[in-house]
């Protein structure tokens, strides 16, 4: 059944291989855009959580609790419909009654980044606290300003503690991009859906999509291992 449908996966006019690859590209674009935005927001959120102001700390805690308990799917739909509605009412307020349609790709990226940053903030916070306090004291004793202590001593070491956690989050993010197919972003899963609907061979295409996702996460896992080893270079390996 699946085997006799394999020609459908070739690249060209008769096969859907090129469409799947195009979808795969969109999936990667989604993931990388959400990663970039999510990392920046995650750093800011971690800053809020470590801040001395109770208001900022409170915001950080509430936001994390909210993201942790709400399904990713729900957040994505809320961002998609909510941002469209918000911008539309904003336009009406300014006196521009034009109808606005939220680009689906942008909505998906914002939604995924909003989820990613909550978990990334936890990783960053842990990494920040994992840098031994003695080193900070040593920096201050050398006469460094607090900013210099941060970007010379803390930041370079934070990455080492953050990489395993961030690697995990990247894998989660990569898999979560498939949700964008539900709001009709033309990612890998949606291309598989379109192909399966027009060829009536859903099993072939969904299995093919699954295999491509497996390949992406497999490559990511190998890359994470290399990065981790690189981040650990020069450190004593007493504990293995």
């Amino acid at each position: 059944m699946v085997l006799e449908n394999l020609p459908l996966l070739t690249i060209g006019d008769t096969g859907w291989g090129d469409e799947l690859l195009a979808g795969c590209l969109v999936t990667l674009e989604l993931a990388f855009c959400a990663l970039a935005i999510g990392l920046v927001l995650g750093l800011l959120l971690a800053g809020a959580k470590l801040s001395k102001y109770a208001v900022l700390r409170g915001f950080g805690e509430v936001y994390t609790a909210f993201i942790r308990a709400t399904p990713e799917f729900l957040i994505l739909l809320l961002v998609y419909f909510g941002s469209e509605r918000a911008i539309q009412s904003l336009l009406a307020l300014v006196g521009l009654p034009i109808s606005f349609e939220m680009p689906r790709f942008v909505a998906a990226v914002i939604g995924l980044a909003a989820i990613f940053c909550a978990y990334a903030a936890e990783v960053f916070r842990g990494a920040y606290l994992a840098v031994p306090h003695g080193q900070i004291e040593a920096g201050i004793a050398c006469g460094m300003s607090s900013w210099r202590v941060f970007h010379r001593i803390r930041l370079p070491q934070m990455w080492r503690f953050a990489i395993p956690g961030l690697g995990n989050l990247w894998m989660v993010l990569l898999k979560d991009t498939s949700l964008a197919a539900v709001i009709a972003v033309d990612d890998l899963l949606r291309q598989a859906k379109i192909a399966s609907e027009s060829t009536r061979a859903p099993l072939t295409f969904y299995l093919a999509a699954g295999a491509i996702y497996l390949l992406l996460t497999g490559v990511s896992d190998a890359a994470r291992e290399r990065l981790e080893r690189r981040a650990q270079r020069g450190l004593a390996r007493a504990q293995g």
Partner: protein
Amino acid sequence: MSTIGRLYLDGKIWLSDSVCTLVSPVSPETFANFCPRFIDGFFVSLELLLLSSLMGIVIALAIALARTSSTVLLSLPAYLYCYVFRGTPLLVQLWVFYYGFGALGEEGLGFLWPLFRDGYTVGLFTLTINTSAYAGEIFRGGIVNVPHGQYEAATAAGMDWWTTMRRIVLPQALRIAWPAYSNEVILLLKGSALVSTITVLDLMGQTRTIFARNYSLDVFLYAIVLYLILSGALTVLLRLIERRMMLPGEAAGAAG
């Protein structure tokens, strides 16, 4: 239908009725109008979660035992199972089983057809498989972290492999793995929202139907509140189990 099934259904309807009559006068209009639907979806989500996590634990323990086994014939398939189901999105798994295998129809699936025809059973099945792969990995970590002296002591006491596992290793492994497993259950709850894409009317499915009808955004907010209640209750329950599993004198969280 069995008596227990009918009792359960009646109980659900009674609970839904009483909650809605209690809440409706004080809740916003949209929620009051669709209250029975929300509560119904809430129960479907809860059912899916409880059933899949219970079945998932059993499979996960078997997977973890197979993965730590010294026989490649056992450990390799278990490893591949974890690798495949952890490496692909849950949404893709749901669509493979529901739309993919479902399209094979009665002639292709034979006696399995009734299982694949219904979104609810496919959803339950896929969630179980998915969570068992993640939990299997977590329990494996627990088993590996049981001190080796415990095995030796059990062997010295004349226990065979199965007794050692059942009496000595698994209880300790579970205790080590429980905090991580609690996290996985919350992830499973959030993942269960995806079954709404295969026609199941769980909390998310009901929310989407209601939204499609009145296009009012606050529908999502009510769903979020209900999910918060669900995950809050789950967290408390998992914490209680964790405390029960703790040894006397052991500090809270020390096992994690």
